[in-house]
C-alpha cells in the first residue's frame, strides 16, 4: 500500500488569481471585494439566489465585462497576465486559446446559421488547424463524445432539441482543449432528466481533460455533483466559501443554512 506511488504533486501555482474584485453599476453593487484562487483541474461553483451577483462575477472573470476595482490575473507561460488590462486583440487571442465560455442559452454560444460540424470546426480553425479532413474527423469524434449522432454533422443546430444544442455548445467549447472554462447555469433551461444526463457528461469530460472550471448555478444539487469548491454569494458579496460538501453539509452562515434547508441536497 504505497501511497507515494499514486500521489502526484499538487500543482503549486494557481491558474487564476482574483483579488478584491468589485463591479459597480453606478450606485448599485454587482459584486464586491471578491478574492479567490483557482488551481489547474479544480472546479469552483458559485451559488446564490438570482440577483446575488453570480453572473456579474462570472462575466468579469471571463472578460466579458470590466471590473470596477481589483485584480484578475491569469497564469500564462510562466507569467501573470493582468486580464482586464490586456489590449483587446490580445485578450481575444487569449480567450480563443486558453479559455471557453458555456452560456446558459445555447443560442448565445452557437452560430445558429452554421452546421453542427461547422460550429465545432470553427474553434479548431481558430486554434490553427487547416486540414479539412482532420477538422471533419475531430468534429465527428466530438459529436459522438457529446452523444450526438455524428451523421448529423451537416445539420443546423436549430433542428436540434434544447439538450442537443447545449451538448453541441459544450463540444464547441471543449474541442480546443481550453485550460479554463466558465459556465453560467449550463443546465438551466433543460428538463430534469436531460439535465442529469448532461451533468454526467460534463463531469466526465471536465475531469478527464483536467480542465479548471468556474460554474454558476442556483441549483445546489448541480453544485454538489460538479464542483470541488463552493462560493456562496449574497447581495454581491461572497459570504462563505470552502469544500463543496462541507459548505452544503455544515453551512456556517445564516444565509447558507437557509439555502441548504430549503432543498434536499
Amino acid at each position, binding site marked *: *500500500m504505497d501511497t507515494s506511488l499514486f500521489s502526484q504533486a499538487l500543482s503549486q501555482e494557481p491558474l487564476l488569481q482574483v483579488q478584491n474584485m468589485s463591479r459597480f453599476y453606478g450606485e448599485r453593487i454587482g459584486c464586491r471585494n471578491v478574492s479567490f484562487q483557482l488551481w489547474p483541474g479544480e472546479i469552483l461553483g458559485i451559488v446564490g439566489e438570482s440577483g446575488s451577483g453570480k453572473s456579474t462575477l462570472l462575466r468579469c472573470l471571463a472578460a466579458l465585462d470590466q471590473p470596477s476595482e481589483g485584480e484578475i490575473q491569469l497564469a500564462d507561460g510562466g507569467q501573470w497576465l493582468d486580464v482586464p488590462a490586456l489590449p483587446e486583440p490580445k485578450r481575444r487571442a487569449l480567450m480563443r486559446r486558453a479559455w471557453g465560455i458555456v452560456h446558459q442559452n445555447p443560442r448565445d454560444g452557437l452560430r445558429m446559421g452554421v452546421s453542427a460540424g461547422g460550429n465545432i470546426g470553427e474553434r479548431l480553425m481558430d486554434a490553427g488547424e487547416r486540414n479539412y479532413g482532420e477538422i471533419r474527423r475531430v468534429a465527428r469524434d466530438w459529436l459522438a463524445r457529446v452523444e450526438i449522432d455524428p451523421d448529423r454533422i451537416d445539420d443546423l443546430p436549430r433542428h436540434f432539441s434544447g439538450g442537443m444544442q447545449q451538448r453541441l455548445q459544450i463540444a464547441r467549447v471543449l474541442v480546443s482543449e481550453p485550460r479554463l472554462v466558465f459556465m453560467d447555469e449550463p443546465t438551466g433551461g433543460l428538463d430534469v432528466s436531460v439535465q442529469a444526463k448532461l451533468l454526467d457528461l460534463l463531469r466526465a469530460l471536465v475531469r478527464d481533460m483536467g480542465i479548471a472550471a468556474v460554474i454558476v448555478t442556483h441549483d445546489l444539487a448541480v453544485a454538489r455533483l460538479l464542483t470541488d469548491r463552493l462560493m456562496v454569494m449574497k447581495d454581491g458579496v461572497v459570504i462563505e466559501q470552502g469544500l463543496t460538501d462541507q459548505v452544503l453539509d455544515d453551512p456556517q452562515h445564516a444565509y447558507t443554512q437557509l439555502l441548504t434547508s430549503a432543498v434536499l441536497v
Partner: protein
Amino acid sequence: MDMIRVNGVSKSFTLHNQGAATLQVLEGIAFAAGAGECLILQGESGAGKSTLLRLLYGNYKCTRGEILVRHDEQWIDIATAQARTILEIRRFTLSYVSQFLRVIPRVSTIDIVSGPLLARGVGAEIAARRAGDMLSRLNIPPRLWGLAPATFSGGEQQRVNIARSFIAHTPIMLLDEPTASLDAANRDVVIELINEARKSGVCLVGIFHDEAVRQMVATARFDILTAKQPEAA
C-alpha cells in the same frame, strides 16, 4: 504507526435560523489510531459518533482542536487544510464508507466497482474481473452488473457501495454503520472485508451499532460521552 491523531477536538453547531441555538456536540476529544487497527467509536444515539467521523473526513468544519492525518509521509491537519489538500487526501489516503451509495447516474455497477482500481492504474480486464469477484462475494448476481444501480434495492445499493469501497483500500478508512440492515450472510462478508483490510495494514475507524459485529472487528474502542443539553444562545 499512528495514522490519525485527534487532539482537543470540539464541535458545536449554531442554528442561525432557529434562534441561533447552539448545540455543543463534542468537546475535548483526543485519541490516536494506527495502521492495522480498527478503532470503534461508541456512545449512545446522538452522542456525536457520526459527527466525529465526518470531522475526520473534512465533511464537517472543526470548531476547535486538530485532526492530524498521515498523508504521503506528512502530518496534515484536516481542521485547517485547504479544500484542495483535503480533496487530494481523500483521493489517496482517506475514504468514507456509509450505508448509502451516492448514485452516479448512468454508470454501470461493474464500472462503479472497478473504478477505484482503474484510478490506480490496474488494467481494464483485471479490474473488471476483480470487480466481478467482489460483487459475487457480496451476492450481487451477474445479471445486475451491467446495470446502473439507481434502480437497485436499498440493500443492493449498499453492497455495491461496500464493494467499491473495499476493492482498493486507502490507508485510512472511516466506516459509518456499513453493516446496518444487511442480512446475516452479507454482514459476515463485510466483517471479513474489514478484517482483511486491517490485516493488510489499513487503519480503520468505525461505528457499528451491533455489539456482536464490534466484537468481531474491534482492536480498540473509544467512548464518546453523552451529548450535553443544547443551550440557548
